[in-house]
């Protein structure tokens, strides 16, 4: 048990690898038991998890708010789409790397004028960026395909994976699951990267900049550089998430990444817990099954899902959840654990001291 103790207390790189591996394998195992529809939902959730990781890092750790992450997602998605359009045979991993690089560059472009801004100015600036992406995509039709967007080739499931399945719907099941597994693995890798970033020198510098920028400057931290770096990393994560999202859906259009997606992302991050790794995963899981959740709430409240109100129920619920969480439980779902753990630990200590006496 000594190993477990050091794993929990020290949070070393090795323990992080083990933790992420265990989580990823668990998620992969789950995909085997889910129906194809749930598998594709899970794939989308994995892509969104990557974006929320970046957002959580930006808002929770560097203290800069962004409403532009749907814009960064669009940059990544279009990079992947345009690249795939011209170089069909590029391995997926290169496409993803390109998407991350382009995301980071767009993040830098936004960061340069933004690093001197605070709070509301920054939120508005990033909102304006995210609003500008759609007209850009609509305008340069020859590159982006205009309103119709771009199409990706369907993901090819390797034959060894196909052999694992039998029965009448073997190919459908295998394809859906291969997509989900791919997304889960990418999300796992990015989770590991972010876990290390959180505890890195940059991560610590970021927190100091967030809490007291004057002290940070006195410590020799370059403020604009650190803030820009936070933006670039968040944008790279969003770019990858956007690329993965559109590869899964095999298409990217200007309407894939509307302004409301930024609100959804913010809601999921706040619900999960601002600035926490587990919060991002919780947010991703909620996203995966939000359609089912909304359906359930519709049937509970007796709203006809085919009606106008039913169709907009998701927006109403997400917005209301965002308000309620922020007002009454700003630490989110992940914030429930630490006080609970403290409570358990205190009780255990009480028990041991009693037994000594």
């Amino acid at each position: 048990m000594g190993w477990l103790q050091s794993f929990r207390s020290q949070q070393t790189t090795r323990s992080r690898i083990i933790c992420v591996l265990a989580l990823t394998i668990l998620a992969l195992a789950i995909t085997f038991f889910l129906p194809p529809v749930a598998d594709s939902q899970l794939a989308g959730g994995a892509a969104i998890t990557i974006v929320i990781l970046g957002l959580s890092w930006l808002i929770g750790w560097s203290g800069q708010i962004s409403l532009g992450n749907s814009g960064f997602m669009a940059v990544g998605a279009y990079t992947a789409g345009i690249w795939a359009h011209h170089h069909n045979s590029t391995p997926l991993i290169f496409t993803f790397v390109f998407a991350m690089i382009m995301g980071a560059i767009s993040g830098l472009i936004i960061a340069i004028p933004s690093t001197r801004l605070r709070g509301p100015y920054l939120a508005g600036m990033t909102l304006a960026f995210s609003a500008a992406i759609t007209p850009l995509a609509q305008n340069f039709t020859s590159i982006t395909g205009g309103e119709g967007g771009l199409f990706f080739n369907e993901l090819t499931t390797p034959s060894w994976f196909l052999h694992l399945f039998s029965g009448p719907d073997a190919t459908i099941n295998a394809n859906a699951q291969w997509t989900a597994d791919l997304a889960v693995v990418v999300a796992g890798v990015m989770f590991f990267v972010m876990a290390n970033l959180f505890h890195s020198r940059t991560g610590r510098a970021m927190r100091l900049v967030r809490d007291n920028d004057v002290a940070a400057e006195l410590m020799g931290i370059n403020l604009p550089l650190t803030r820009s770096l936070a933006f670039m990393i968040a944008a790279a994560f969003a770019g990858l998430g956007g690329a993965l999202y559109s590869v899964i859906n095999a298409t990217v259009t200007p309407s894939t990444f509307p302004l409301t997606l930024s609100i959804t992302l913010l809601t999921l991050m706040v619900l999960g817990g601002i600035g926490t790794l587990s919060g991002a995963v919780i947010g991703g899981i909620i996203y995966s099954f939000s359609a089912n959740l909304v359906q359930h709430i519709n049937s509970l409240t007796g709203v006809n899902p085919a009606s106008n109100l039913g169709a907009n129920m998701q927006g109403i619920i997400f917005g209301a959840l965002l308000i309620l969480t922020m007002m009454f439980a700003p630490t989110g779902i992940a914030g429930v654990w630490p006080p609970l753990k403290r409570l358990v630990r205190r009780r255990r200590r009480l028990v041991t001291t009693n037994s000594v006496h």
Partner: protein
Amino acid sequence: MSDFLASPFMHNIFSGLAQGVLYSLLALSLVIIWQSTHVLNFAQGAMAMFATYIGMTQIDRGVPYWWCVIISVVVGMAFGGLAERVLIRPLYGKPEINPIVVMVGFLGVIEALAAGIWTSTTRNIASPFSQIYFHATNGQVILLSPFVIFQVILAVAIMLGIAALFRFTKLGLQLRASALAPEVARLLGVRVGRMLTIGWILASGVGAVAAVIIASGTFGLFPTNMDGLFVAGFIAAAVGGLESPIGAITGGLLIGLAEQFILSYWSATLAPLGGIIILVIALMIRPQGIFTKTVGRRV
């Protein structure tokens, strides 16, 4: 003279200014709220849209146009007051991200609710003024209609009214005092809490007027019809520094003109970029806003 008024250049000036006054109105409402509570109200446009839906759909029940306008503005004001009391007041003293996130959530709720109640299809509201453009004596079109003139006059009247209220009335003095030095104002007997609510009520009224004009014009009324206006209005307010009403109004007009010139000389879909280009340039030159006084930040 009429040749000049009908020239492409003047077309752009007229359309740009007509659109610009709407941006100025929304920017002004954002500035009033920012001055009173230091919150950037992301739901400003959506709140105004919702109030306009409530007011203007009364036309279907046979209520005259002007009564509908008054209902919209009054409902908008009530919304503003309620939002400040219920959503913003519990968050004073919390990190500045919290009210932003709450108002973004409110924006999501309102837009989804409006789409749920009234559907997302565009409604056109018949205004009492004609939208047909004037013609010059030689038959050329001048890009001005009775409605556009009404739009500009109403917007300017609202701006002057707000300016007069802040400048010449006792209420205006109290509002300015509680924005500038809440502690001192409280000691001198100003009910600061009430002033903050009044600031929100005033601002939401101004926003509702902008929404009514937008809905009555060619743009029409639909749940997200204020999104573009909000972004442009925010940019206008930010260019001016979020604290200067004059800056906000100037910024709004500038953005209106920039968008119109991009639309006419480059591409219609790229017009929304006009504001962003102006914002980036303005922030590069003076990040605290063009029209603000330099204030030292206390460490």
